[in-house]
């Protein structure tokens, strides 16, 4: 699977970090359905849960080689080892970094360990994963890295600013990485989904919130990564909503219960 020349018809290698996330699973389904993927490596913490995802993808696309790679993606050393292991088998063409978890904001405020955990899972870990792959891709001179951020990173709000801060970190990082790789054939795509109908947001749905479908968001990720769009809001309406929220004067913003 050493396809160093990026011929468009050569089977591609796809790596998904946080592959048990629902958005990631749907992205993988769409990529496999579109064809051209020869090998998929699913990375995450829980091998059994990853295998369940792998089985599903294997039924969907029997021709592709679906592999599972379990490891701790919150520790710098183990991230480096995982990526080194993967890159030794050929630098992947496409990497999606999809893991995250929506923390409980009040709990983060009362328990620093929860806040730390939320920061690590949603901010540090995706950034370090992206950094590790970016190095390998820059050497290979090609590839696309997709990172799932969040609209929550656009402005700190009392209802979820720990999560928002972590995602804001991801955004600033992606911006810098895009700057660094601007002259290369490595593309970095930051996707910022609005609230999406996944297990992570079940409690929002229970309160009657309107959520984007996971298929819709996955489609935006896949399309954005194919085009190399630097920042993708999914669905697109969130670009407008967040532009308004970012630009609200503090006086007005502080009166809002969001």
């Amino acid at each position, binding site marked *: 699977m050493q396809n160093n020349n990026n011929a468009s018809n050569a089977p591609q290698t796809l790596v998904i970090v946080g592959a048990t996330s*629902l958005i990631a*699973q749907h992205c993988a389904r769409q990529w496999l359905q579109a064809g051209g993927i020869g090998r998929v490596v699913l990375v995450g913490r829980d091998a059994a*849960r990853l295998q*369940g*995802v792998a*089985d*599903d993808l294997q*039924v*969907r696309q*029997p021709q592709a080689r679906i592999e599972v790679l379990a490891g701790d993606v919150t520790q710098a050393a183990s991230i480096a080892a995982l990526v080194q292991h993967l890159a030794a088998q050929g630098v992947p063409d496409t990497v999606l970094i999809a893991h995250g978890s929506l923390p409980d904001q009040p709990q983060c405020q009362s328990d620093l360990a929860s806040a730390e955990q939320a920061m690590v899972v949603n901010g540090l870990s995706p950034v370090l994963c992206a950094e590790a792959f970016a190095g390998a891709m820059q050497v290979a001179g090609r590839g696309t890295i997709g990172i799932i951020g969040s609209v929550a990173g656009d402005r700190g709000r009392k209802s979820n600013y720990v999560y928002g801060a972590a995602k804001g970190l991801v955004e600033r990082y992606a911006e810098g990485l895009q700057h660094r790789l601007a002259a290369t054939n490595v593309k970095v795509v930051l996707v910022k989904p609005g609230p999406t109908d*996944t*297990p992570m947001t*079940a409690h929002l*749905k*229970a*309160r*009657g919130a309107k959520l984007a479908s996971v298929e819709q968001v996955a489609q935006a990720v896949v399309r954005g990564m194919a085009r190399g769009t630097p920042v993708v809001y999914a669905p697109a309406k969130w670009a407008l909503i967040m532009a308004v929220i970012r630009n609200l004067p503090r006086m007005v913003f502080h009166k809002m219960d969001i």
Partner: protein
Amino acid sequence: MVAVRSWGRLSADDHDLRILAERPLAHLPREPGQHGLAFGMGRSYGDVCLNPGGALWSLRGLDRFIAWDEATGELTCEAGMLLRDIQRTFVPRGWMLPVTPGTQLATVGGAIANDVHGKNHHGNGSFGDHVQELRLLRTDGLSIRCGPQLHPDWFAATVGGLGLTGVVTQATLRLRRVPGAWLDTETLPYGSLGEFFALADASEAGWEHTVSWIDCLSGARAGATRGIFLRANAAAPEFQHGAAPKDRQRTVPFAPPVSLVNRLSLRPFNAAYYHLNRRRAGRALQHYEPFSYPLDNLQEWNRIYGRRGFYQYQCVVPRPHGPDAVGALLREITASGQGSFLGVLKTFGDRESVGLLSFPQPGVTLALDFPNLGDRTLRLFDRLDAVVAEAGGRLYPAKDARMPRALFEAGYPKLAQFLPYRDPNIRSAMSRRLMGD
């Protein structure tokens, strides 16, 4: 709590909606004393999928394939899998679900719980006939594997069991080989019930799919019921090419204050549909999706019946009484001036269903939508019920929102045999209405 509607939009009651995402699913989340019910796509018309005030366990997140055996055609998947996902994954590889209802936007779990049927019932039976094995999770944490050979009693209770025996978490289905996605179809206009039955009799042996649309308002004069008979077989391999139709999704944007299906629109629409299709009479090559699921590209079409929602009335009557009973039903409907764009009339094959409460039985089935006009509509249903009861027929629970308990008990003689298999902590609005709790 979230307001949940079923497909008929007759009510919007609060439910404690829980998303089941844990894999593999080991227990059902429930507050002490609370009753729950599995929920998929909510495509059931009436109250079989609702549990007002209680928990609804959404299975839509559990939608993974688990295993596929190319040699036997056996597919194992989670119960929240959409029938459309199975079709779109396997039709290009030459395999298809042997039985589907008129929408692909239903889950495997829902198809089992309602033991759905399709246009090929006379050849292939109902959905449960093709389930090799399923896993049932009970609220006490017990997981039961069952199938036609393994614990067949649990299997017979769960197939068509309206979700009341536990939550189906995964199932193994046997797909069947098909030459491709294209069907060889024939459209035949008919002008009387006698003609319909003659066409049905003549078609069952040689045609895999048969169904007919009837103009539900044309039955005023005896023998004048007009309709369109459709039949189809898989097209021969040399015709299996061409691009799948584009996924042109349209959405009915909102529910108008009054039903768009009313006295003014009904007659012209049905007449136009009949005449349009009369001109199309004859053979044609058609992709299976528009043939089998004509409404799936019109999202939220149920809104056209307005804010008060609509009922569907689907009954089956034994074949010997078929012509008389269907004639009598259509006369009542015509006299009431209520009804929908097109009724569906189809003969079932001569076979028993797997499930104790499965709907299909040998005979003829009539299905019609009715905008909810309150008492007027309910009074019409009472008159229709009388015809069905006299003919020894029954109504389809997956579509029902109002049948009286007596009609349910008369139509489903195996009810007493079913009840011991119920999960004591699972209830639906329907179970309260038809089984007392």
